[in-house]
């Protein structure tokens, strides 16, 4: 497990889903979690918010998760922020598009706690190796 104080932002337009992800993160030992309900709100929280990890849905009003991911990668102050997509979009095109836009991982709903844990661990491990 990475630093338990790692600051997470959970982005999803369904409050039920935000609560689920927040609870799963808590079960994994991460309690420093904030929420945003779309890409626009997420970006404004991320800019200057010292966040260290983003878990985001894809389909959201105002700004979807993919657009948000592209904005993050294009912003020099956020570009290296790890982003894990957690989404009901299960098509190959979606997964490829997310990978090309620079997602660090992709989890398809409905997912298990073990899957989320495994994905987070993998991302943290890679980040450590690259010395980030």
């Amino acid at each position, binding site marked *: 497990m990475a630093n338990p104080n790692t600051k997470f932002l959970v982005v999803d*337009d*369904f*409050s*039920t*889903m935000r*609560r*689920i*992800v927040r*609870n*799963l993160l808590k*079960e994994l030992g991460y309690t420093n979690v904030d929420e945003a309900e779309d890409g626009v709100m997420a970006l404004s929280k991320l800019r200057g918010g010292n966040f260290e990890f983003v878990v985001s849905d894809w*389909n959201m*009003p105002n700004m979807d998760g993919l657009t948000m991911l592209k904005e993050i990668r294009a912003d020099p102050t956020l570009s290296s922020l790890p982003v894990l997509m957690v989404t*009901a979009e*299960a098509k190959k095109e979606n*997964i490829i598009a997310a*990978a090309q836009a620079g997602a660090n*991982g*992709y*989890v*398809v*709903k*409905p*997912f*298990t*706690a*073990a*899957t989320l844990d*495994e*994905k987070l661990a993998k991302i943290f491990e890679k980040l450590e190796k690259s010395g980030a």
Partner: protein
Amino acid sequence: MVVNEEISTSLYYDRTFDCDAAKISPGEYYYTDKDMVIVTVLGSCVSACIRDTVSGIGGMNHFMLPDGGNADKDNPASESMRYGAYAMEVLINQLLRNGARRENLEAKIFGGGNVLRSFTSMNVGERNALFVRQFLKDENIKVTGEDLNDIYPRKVYFFPKTGKVLVKKLKQLNNYTLIKREETYASRLKTDSVGGEVELF
């Protein structure tokens, strides 16, 4: 194998209502902006009929919470809650993607009958009904009608264009098809761990 909510492909022409119809089975959903009827038969499963009151696009799902076991029961992040939230989200996302606006959405909810005799001890139907009510409350989607719980299966006809719903309580079942179908669905949810595929990259 992964249990995914699938869009129904059972389309037919309904002579009684003189319009196109889509029939949905457990684990399926359907949405349309056309003048048609969506039909399903519910035992302990629940259906949410959700529509945009302005544009008239609407849809219906049909699901139950998987039995996550007692240890997991009250955990808001439990596997069964996640599956329920997913089943609701898939339908709502489709509506939003096709022009519905969240603030215009309203819902009517049905089912959750205590009809599976082998399950009476835990009353799956009641749990399903509680879940769908709570979900809509948490998501600020107004519930304008409901017919939940009780012991009878229901046949539900939803007309998305107008929002009209007809419910027929089936007090006498001519055969066990409905119950068998729900039991198969329940055991499929139970055996498959309710988790999406992991894509590695």
